[in-house]
């Protein structure tokens, strides 16, 4: 499950992620991290589901972080897409493929939100959510 975290500048000085990893033993992959003088924003992928995921999210919220669950990182505008496939092979996490009717399908569990498909799309049909 991919999660977007927003936190105040004070929270940034605490090793929240390290603590949660040590306490729960969960695998966490940091996909994106930005820190400005005002606040921080991070997209992480927590490799678990069910109760363990729920506990992890509760822990993050208790630490003062604003948590948004992300269903997918990019979306395809079906009106603009021409099913060419130019986005498929540049995807480093192999998250994009043709479905049976040759429409573009993005596997949200694999997507790491790198955005290379956005620039690779000749129709500008892919956007970050």
């Amino acid at each position, binding site marked *: 499950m991919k999660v977007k975290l927003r936190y105040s500048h004070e929270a940034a000085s605490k090793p929240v992620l390290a603590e949660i990893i040590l306490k729960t033993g969960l695998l966490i992959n940091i996909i994106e991290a930005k820190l400005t003088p005002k606040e921080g924003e991070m997209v992480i992928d927590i490799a678990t589901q069910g109760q363990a995921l729920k506990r992890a999210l509760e822990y993050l919220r208790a630490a003062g972080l604003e948590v948004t669950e992300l269903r997918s990182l990019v979306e395809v505008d079906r009106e603009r897409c*021409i*099913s060419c*496939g*130019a986005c498929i*092979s*540049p995807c*480093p996490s192999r998250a994009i493929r043709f479905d049976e009717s040759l429409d573009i399908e993005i596997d949200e569990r694999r997507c790491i939100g790198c955005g290379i498909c956005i620039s*690779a799309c*000749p129709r500008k049909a892919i956007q970050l959510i």
Partner: protein
Amino acid sequence: MTAEEFIEFVEQSGLEKAAKEVDVVTTGTFGAMCSSGAFLNFGHSEPPIKMVRCWLNDVPVYKGLAAVDAYLGATSMSETKPFEYGGGHVIEDLVSGKEVELRAESYGTDCYPRRSLETTIILDDLNQAYLYNPRNAYQRYNAATNTSDHILYTYMGTLLPRYGNVTFSGSGQLSPLYKDLNLETIGFGTRIFLGGGVGYVVGEGTQHKPQSGFATLAVKGDLRGMSAEYLKGAVFHNYGTTLYVGVGIPIPIINMRVAATAALKDEDIPVDILDYSVPSRDRPIIKKSNYAELKSGKVVIGDKEVPSSPLSSIKVARKIAETLKRWIEAGEFFIQRPIELLPNYREFKPLKIKKREVTVGDIMMPLKDLVLAKPEDDIKKVAKMIIEKNIDHVPIVSEEGVLIGIVTTWDLTRALAEDKKTLKEIMTRYVITAKESERVDEVAKRMAEHHISGLPVVDDVMRVKGLITSDDISRKLVGRRGV
């Protein structure tokens, strides 16, 4: 039936029976075709204008024609939104019925007094608007990969470093020109599916090279009657704009030879995978592949499985072949015998640069003026030489004069600060170099990419011949053309 249905039919019933029973095979392709555009006639304003410069939605339109005739090219880019919107998008917008801004300028003549105009037009306002594409529907096309260590943005799409992916173009077993491989049925006057409407082949396309499977077509058709579903403006990141064009051609099965090529499958159509990191017109072939392997989604290069994906839409190509089949079955589309067939051989000439271009050898600092050093040399001795000769780069060479490293004045400053004694301790061993025969602009680009200001010039066995610096390039070339 469509080319793919024909392939299946031949597999089940054999070529002879298929050739006897099938009259026409329909084909299709839907890919980026940069040599596309439209001739437009705007009609005369009151008072009239001889348009000298002209824009549609800020995209420059070619005006080297009569007063209100113009040619809108697919790769012409918007002056306000370059790499985002271009001629291909204007064509798509016109065919969708959208309003497009027209702007024109002139110097004014006695017969055409107006000097400027601004208005909006829609497709129906124009007297004539026809697609005229000098090169469409390549029989087959090379695939692309990238062996360098940085991302390439090309007309073949985004290519990841170190064989990260392969992209390919063309519809393979649906490709109009490949299905009549020997060009026995397609020629001047052939009626075709073009952009969702009806069009005609008006001759061989530019760079037509049928002897190696790279035949091309020039096509023409009325934009009115076409559909934006089959004419889509597109952008290749950092490359520019283009137009996806839908082309479908009916192939009458007139003899066994045509039947045999119409039945060719993806695995029968060879495709070379080229290395697009080599910026040359002769790119090295990395692998000989075919459309079946490329369409499978992965290609084996060496011992690596590399993801592959198309740039042209196989889905839309299929739809074009289906649509054309329906038109023919319904009696709405008639097959036209060509007035003249296309040539089946054409020399493919390169452009020779006849004016001598400035090379590295012309402006480099020659060997006799250089300061060279040996790895064991004392840092202080080298520092003294640098001051005497007023230079910034010292190539480090072996006894035989072969390059093994480089130090710059910056490296020496640091060495003195850190109390190092010999050059060996501080020299850079991975040296970016240049050759005497290289063009200066290539070398300038290399310096910029690596954020360095000087390159040793070496021969084929890495012996130092000279040194070229960004200073040499800017000082010695000011005011000279061709760089």
